[in-house]
């Protein structure tokens, strides 16, 4: 049984066109995803409600919510969904759309963290923890960094936060990596 959407709903089309998002219309609103989610109680809208809202075309409300940014990608909802939907992928699709349309919720710092992370991956092909954490805290909350100094010190003391990168990609490997990612970006921006 597939629930028919009446009239046009561009939003649902957009979600369905992303890998993993195509099953959103199979949802029967049983709420198993919300009941399985460790963070549902901290979300503006639970996963079940979010799917209902997306299907109702409530694009702005959905994309500006904090819900998908609290998804831990733990996939508990996914293994339990009786309809074989992958709610985790729907959350990822919503995060992608919110990011693309600059509609992220001001209530969460997670999008900034993810951006810092992915920029670092693109630039060096590797994640140096020290540099990544430092850049994130400088961007969102320099004073919040103070609170975490004891943790940073204990990591440092135990050799778990090297200040210099212990591994660097060879220049030719890094340029190959970037060539692949640049091509991907081009394909996304100018689909044939």
């Amino acid at each position, binding site marked *: 049984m597939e629930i028919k959407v009446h009239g046009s709903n561009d939003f649902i089309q957009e979600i369905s066109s992303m890998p993993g998002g195509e099953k959103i219309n199979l949802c029967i609103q049983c709420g198993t995803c919300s009941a399985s989610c460790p963070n549902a109680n901290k979300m503006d809208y639970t996963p079940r409600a979010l799917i209902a809202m997306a299907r109702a075309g409530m694009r702005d409300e959905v994309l500006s919510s904090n819900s998908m940014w609290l998804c831990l990608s733990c996939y508990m909802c996914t293994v339990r969904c009786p309809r074989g939907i992958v709610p985790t992928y729907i959350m990822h699709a919503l995060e992608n759309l919110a990011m693309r349309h600059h509609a992220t919720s001001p209530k969460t710092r997670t999008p900034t963290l993810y951006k810092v992370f992915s920029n670092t991956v693109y630039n060096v092909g590797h994640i140096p923890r020290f540099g990544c954490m430092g850049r994130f805290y400088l961007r969102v909350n320099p004073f919040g960094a103070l609170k975490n100094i004891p943790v940073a010190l204990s990591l440092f003391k135990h050799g778990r936060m090297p200040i210099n990168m212990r591994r660097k990609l060879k220049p030719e490997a890094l340029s190959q990596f970037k*060539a692949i990612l640049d091509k991907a970006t081009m394909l996304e921006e100018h689909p044939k």
Partner: protein
Amino acid sequence: MKYYSYFPGCCMYEDSQAYDLSARAVSKLLDIELIELEDWNCCGSTPYTVVDELSAFCCCARNLALAEKRGLDLVAACSDCYLILSRTNQHFKEYPEVKKKLSESLAAGGLEYNGTIKVRHILDVFANDVSSEDIKATVKVDLGSLKVAPYYGCQAVRPTPNFDDPEYPESMDRMVVSIGAQVVPYPLKTRCCGGSLILSEQDVALGLIYKLLDNAISNGADCIVTVCPFCHLNLDAYQSVVNKKYKTNFNIPILFFTQLMGMAFGIESKALGLRENIVPIGKTLARYITQQ
């Protein structure tokens, strides 16, 4: 001797060298050779998939293409790397559109991928490619009275149950029994540790870590063993922060499962990277540790 391509992942060069060291040390004794993939790059992890899905898949596709040249199964020790490499593989096979874009992007770097590589988790390799008899025969130190809580976290067994049950996995439980320790059953063994939200939504993550620690300890665990660098970091490095926030006195050592295997095999502490563990492992575990 069994041979595998090995994808360490960034954490092994950053905060979790102990996992890498102990995994290599243990594998030598079990006649397993982990051949590190040359010139590998970051898997992109969950954050990159969220920012730009195709680019994230490309990060993994390059690694898979490099692995295909050698043709061996690609073993990841980090659960996040394991998940995202497997997911790329799966999407590559299931979505012709994704396959087309990935192939075009790889070609821009002079690479190609045909989808022939199998991605494995290192727990799967140690638990299923080595017989429990071989493991028992390697044990040198009697862990008899040690009560161990095996913590699987999320991404080693979900979403695709490739080698174990997604909610009640038992492969690590069997491993703990094979090396001679006792398993502590506790309900939260596959509940999430908070992952990377420890940086961006610290209070939320601390709440999840608190529940896990409390659950394992109240069921009588002496130590918790993990299969993922992120789980290890959250439970170990943030245990003191949890204590402060929830006014608790948790002091439970957190080990990588390969460190515990190494201890049972009599591998000396330096080769298992035991100095990296932040919650002191001395009190509970000292008598099982082999010093050089």
